[in-house]
């Protein structure tokens, strides 16, 4: 069979693609030894939909949020002075920024409410837009409702930041480590180029512990629990009090409730 140059190059090209694509497609080797050997911690807290109630009446005394500081220290959240590069999981906002719809210009909301700090964090929405848009499932929702970040998988496209209606997400514009004054050796840091946010302390819940902020708040203003369980403390609180939720009209069904 006579093969001309053109033909030869074609065959060679196809062969190269075939030879390289084969191994590339065989993505991950099966790890047989570890199949079926993983367990949940029996101490893990069990809930169908985790939620948080913030009693904002108790927040007035705190100029600085102790709970937020504890969270940031525990999770190795860097303190970056430039507000453009800031990373925040939980922080205080004024009423007009936390609830811009309810505080339109000239609105009469009362001096006391205006002064009151509002602790805001990821709302762990029932219908999270961030999860919807993530192109790699790096942001996903657990069965118990927690909206989680898989830092190993995030490509840093920041689609989730555009999608989040609450400004809950931060991007690592640079290596965060130089801005962590005291590392918590029990928890990882993040690296430049990934997005991060509050995860309701999923790893503590899985070990039977409450979120750091809930434990740290000296006023017990933050209450955590299963909103699907009518006997939980959070359910009783929202039953008893009128609560606000941020941007409810967007249909995200946020799971942080504010007692006014």
């Amino acid at each position, binding site marked *: 069979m006579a093969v001309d140059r053109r033909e030869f190059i074609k065959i060679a090209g196809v062969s190269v693609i075939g030879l390289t694509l084969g191994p590339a497609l065989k993505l*991950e*080797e099966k*790890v047989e*030894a*570890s199949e079926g*050997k*993983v*367990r*949940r*911690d029996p101490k*893990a807290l069990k809930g169908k939909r985790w939620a948080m109630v913030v009693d904002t009446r108790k927040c007035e005394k705190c100029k600085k949020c102790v709970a937020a500081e504890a969270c940031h220290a525990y999770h*190795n959240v860097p303190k970056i002075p430039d507000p453009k590069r800031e990373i925040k999981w939980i922080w205080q906002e004024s009423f007009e920024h936390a609830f811009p719809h309810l505080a339109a210009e000239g609105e009469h909301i009362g001096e006391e409410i205006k002064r009151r700090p509002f602790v805001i964090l990821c709302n762990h929405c029932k219908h999270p837009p961030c999860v919807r848009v993530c192109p790699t499932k790096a942001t*996903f929702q*657990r069965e118990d409702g927690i909206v*989680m970040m*898989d*830092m*190993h998988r995030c490509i840093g496209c920041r689609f989730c930041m555009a999608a989040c209606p609450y400004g809950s997400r931060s991007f690592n514009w640079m290596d965060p480590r130089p801005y962590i004054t005291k*590392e918590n*050796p*029990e*928890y*990882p*840091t*993040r*690296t430049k180029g990934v997005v991060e946010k509050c995860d309701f302390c*999923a*790893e503590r819940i*899985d*070990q039977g512990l409450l979120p750091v902020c809930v434990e740290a708040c000296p006023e017990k203003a933050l209450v955590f629990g299963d909103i699907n369980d009518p006997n939980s403390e959070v359910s009783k609180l929202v039953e008893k009090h009128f609560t606000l939720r941020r941007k409810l009209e967007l249909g995200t069904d946020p799971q942080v409730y504010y007692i006014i």
Partner: protein
Amino acid sequence: MYDGGKIITGLIIGVILLSFPFWYNLGKAAKFPEPKLTPKAKQAGQCVETKVYMKAHHMQLLNKWRDDVVRKGYRLYVGLNGKMFKMSLQNECLKCHSNKQEFCDKCHNFVDVKPYCWECHIEPKEAKGGK
């Protein structure tokens, strides 16, 4: 042959460049390093799986662990002889293998792999002084 001189010169340069790694490293063959165990690891006698398995597959195991932990919420691993382990690089593996430089880096440097685990996971403090 047209331009014979140029072609042969080109060929010689090509061959030299292609074989560069071989003669550059001639006589410098390095011995494969043995990872060192800490007294604590030695005393434990075994890892989560057999030594042979860990040597060959620790990367796949860790890869699977991180998915199991982060994405599925499994935190515990039933290792050899039914012993329970916390699936955590930082809070379990490195508690025994606290000598990261001697245990991890040596081999990784030798085979020139740069796992980015340490960009986030904090290495044990002892290892830092070991330099």
